[in-house]
Structures are given as structure tokens and as C-alpha cells.
């Protein structure tokens, strides 16, 4: 059974150290909820996990094999939902979705896309061009990608933004189903998403400020003690 783990991860954005010495481990059916204040590196960590961002230090492993050894293989295991919905305004919802399903190698992308929209509770938007969709509908369309192009590992960056309560409940059900089939989920959120049995990772535990400040003040005291 697959295990996705990271060790000693350090991420640098610009010249700011976002997190350092970060460790995580997810088993089959596992869920990891990333928590932390704005700017604590939740999105960065998800991008590192997806392979969009290279960590400054540290390794990601899948079943003990370093992800960096075969990035192509890793990409086929991952579905990433970011802040942007990637919805083309002139394509209909089904066309938008079917393209991503086809790119992931689906045999019948249009059928997959329709089934996924059904599951997300928005079958009526299938023929509607992207520019007429509301923010919540676009979000549902983006989340439908998870079903239209299945992958073992879901990386979700605040997936419930713009969703109404009913949609959040629906989405919680989809996550539970994915986990029951042995899938893994990593998500960052500021609202409550029920992930029974899921682990929490507090990113502020790995932000280097606190240490720096302590180290800095010690230096200062030593310097001050010399004269």
C-alpha cells in the first residue's frame, strides 16, 4: 500500500524562509489537514507536494522511493486544485472538464465529465459556457476534475472557497469516498471540513521566525556583554 511522506522539507520563497524541517506522512486512506495563519506556507507546501515548486532542501517519497527520481510518474498520481479555477470562458462546462479528463488519459472524457458534474450536483451547467458560471459553480466544476480524472493523491488548496453549505457537505462525502477506496487527501482550509480520522499539520510549528528571534536576541546579549 502506498505511503506518501516528506522529510526535512525546507521551502524558500523569494528570500523568505517559509518553513523548515517539515515532516509529514500519509498512508492509504489518510487525510492531512494543513492549518496555520495566512502566509504560513500551506499553499507552498501543497505546491511542493504537487511538484510545481522545488523544495530548497528535503525529500518527498512515495513508498520510500524519492519522488524526484521520476517526476512524470508522480504527476500521474496527483490531482491538484489550486486557488485558480482554470475555467475557459468560451468553453462549456463539459468541454472544460472533458479536456482535463482527456489529458489524464480518460477513454471517454465527455462521459466522464458529465458523470462528474452529476456527482457534484450541477448537471444543469453542462452546456453553459464558463463565462456565465458563478464563482461557486466554477469551483464545483474545478472540483469535478477530481472525479473526471481520478488520481491517488488529492492536493486541495482551500477547496471550499465560494461553496455553499450543501456543496461543502457533498464534497466531504466525496473525500470520505475517495479515502475509503484507499486514496489520500491533503487539504488546506480556513473553514471546517470534516475529515474523520484525518491528521492535522500546524505549519506555524515549522516557521523559522521564532527560532531566529531567539537566536538573534542571544547574539545581541552576547555582543552587549562584551564591553
Amino acid at each position, binding site marked *: 500500500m502506498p505511503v506518501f511522506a516528506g522529510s526535512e522539507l525546507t521551502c524558500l520563497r523569494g528570500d523568505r524562509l517559509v518553513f523548515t524541517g517539515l515532516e509529514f506522512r500519509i498512508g492509504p486512506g489518510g487525510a492531512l489537514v494543513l492549518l496555520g495563519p495566512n502566509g504560513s506556507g500551506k499553499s507552498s507546501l501543497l505546491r511542493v507536494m504537487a511538484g510545481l515548486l522545488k523544495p530548497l532542501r528535503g525529500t518527498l517519497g512515495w513508498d520510500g522511493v524519492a519522488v524526484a527520481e521520476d517526476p512524470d510518474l508522480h504527476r500521474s498520481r496527483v490531482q491538484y486544485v489550486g486557488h485558480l479555477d*482554470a475555467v475557459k470562458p*468560451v*468553453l462549456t462546462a463539459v468541454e472544460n472538464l472533458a479536456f482535463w479528463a482527456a489529458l489524464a488519459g480518460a477513454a471517454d472524457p465527455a462521459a466522464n465529465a458529465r458523470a462528474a458534474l452529476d456527482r457534484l450536483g450541477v448537471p444543469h451547467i453542462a452546456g453553459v459556457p464558463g463565462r456565465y458560471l458563478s464563482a461557486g459553480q466554477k469551483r464545483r466544476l474545478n472540483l469535478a476534475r477530481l472525479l473526471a480524472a481520478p488520481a491517488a493523491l488529492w492536493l486541495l488548496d482551500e477547496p471550499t472557497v465560494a461553496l455553499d453549505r450543501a456543496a461543502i457537505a457533498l464534497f466531504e462525502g466525496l473525500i470520505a469516498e475517495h479515502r475509503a477506496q484507499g486514496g489520500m487527501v491533503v487539504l488546506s482550509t480556513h473553514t471546517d471540513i470534516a475529515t474523520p480520522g484525518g491528521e492535522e499539520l500546524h505549519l506555524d510549528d515549522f516557521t523559522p521566525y521564532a527560532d531566529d528571534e531567539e537566536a538573534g536576541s542571544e547574539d545581541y546579549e552576547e555582543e552587549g556583554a562584551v564591553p
Partner: protein
Amino acid sequence: MSRFLRLVARDLRLALRQGSDATIAVMFFVLCVVLFPFGVGPEPNILARIAAGVIWVAALLASLLSLERLFQTDYEDGSLELLSLSSLPLEAAVLAKTLAHWLVTGVPLIVAAPLLAVLLNMDAEGFGVLVLTLTLGTPILSLIGAIGAALTLGARRGGVLLSLLILPLYIPVLIFGAGAIDAAINGLTPRPHLLLLAGILAAALPLAPWAGAAALRQAVE
């Protein structure tokens, strides 16, 4: 249908539904060439003498027009992140998008060029070679342009930067493109020029997607 063709088909569909890119490029091309008789006067001999160069320069500028948009919309709406995470190699994605861009903006230029050649009183000897040089040359323009479009992604005033970056690289294509037509009109063989153009195309075909993909990875990060 392979993933590569899916991406080409999707970009073509986007371009056809939006409709503006293709028509703007070819309209600009026509207008740009039509301006010359007004500027240099309607003397047929002068127009015939400069026709090859004018058409080629106008083709360069027209292909620049829509290049800025090549990756811009995908970058802004998050599609580029998903493309770089898909199982289609990013190099192939760059090639697919460049191919779609050429089909939408390059091919109409090739179709319109003979008409403009008549307008400028170009010697009939040059017509065939004109179409041939544009067929070899416009894909090179799209390929080199794709590198520039990827490099300037996310930059403010990216379009202006792109022109400054790319136009100098277009010079060899312009020299051999216009040179081949002049050679044909003067009764010489255009073969060396055409071979050199084909050589540039053969070099750009693998190198441009490779360089473009590297630039896109930086942009997505």
C-alpha cells in the same frame, strides 16, 4: 486522439470561438502592407523592388501581435499549472500550443500574401517562392516567439518586452525569406536561401519547445 492533438484542438477551438486573434493578425498584415504605396508613392517599379521585403517585415510584425497571448491566458486562469502537472510533457504542450498559434495566425498570412504581392506589383516569378518562404518561415516565427512569450510571462508590459526580445532574433528569417524571393525574381536560384530557412526551422523545432518549457516551469514556480 493523443494528448498532444487534444491540446491543439482545444487551443484551436478557443481561438475560433474568441475569433479575434486570427482576424486581427491577418488584418494588421494587410493594412501594414497597404500603407506602403501611400508612403513611398504609387510608382510600380519602386513597389515591385521593395515588395518582398515589405511583405516579410509586415509578416514579422503581424505574427508578433498575438504572441503575447500565447501562454498569458493559461497562466492567468491557472490552466498552465494544471498543464505542467499533466502527463503530457511540458515541451510537448509548448509545441502543441505553438502549432495551434501558427495554424490560427501564420496560415492566414500565407494565404493573404500572394494577394498583397499582386497589389505591390511583385514580379510573377516570385509568387511561388513567396508562398514557399512564408510556409517555411512563419512556423519559425511562432517557435522563436514562443520562447519569448514564455520568458516574458508575468512581466509587466510583457508585450513590449517581448517585441524587443524577439525582433532581433527574427532578423535571419527576414534576410533569407526576402533574399529567396529577390533571387527568384532576378533569375537566380532561391535554393540556398530556402535550405537555410529549412535549417533554421529544423533547429527551432526541438530547441524552442525545450527552452519554452524551461521558461514556463520558472513562471509557474
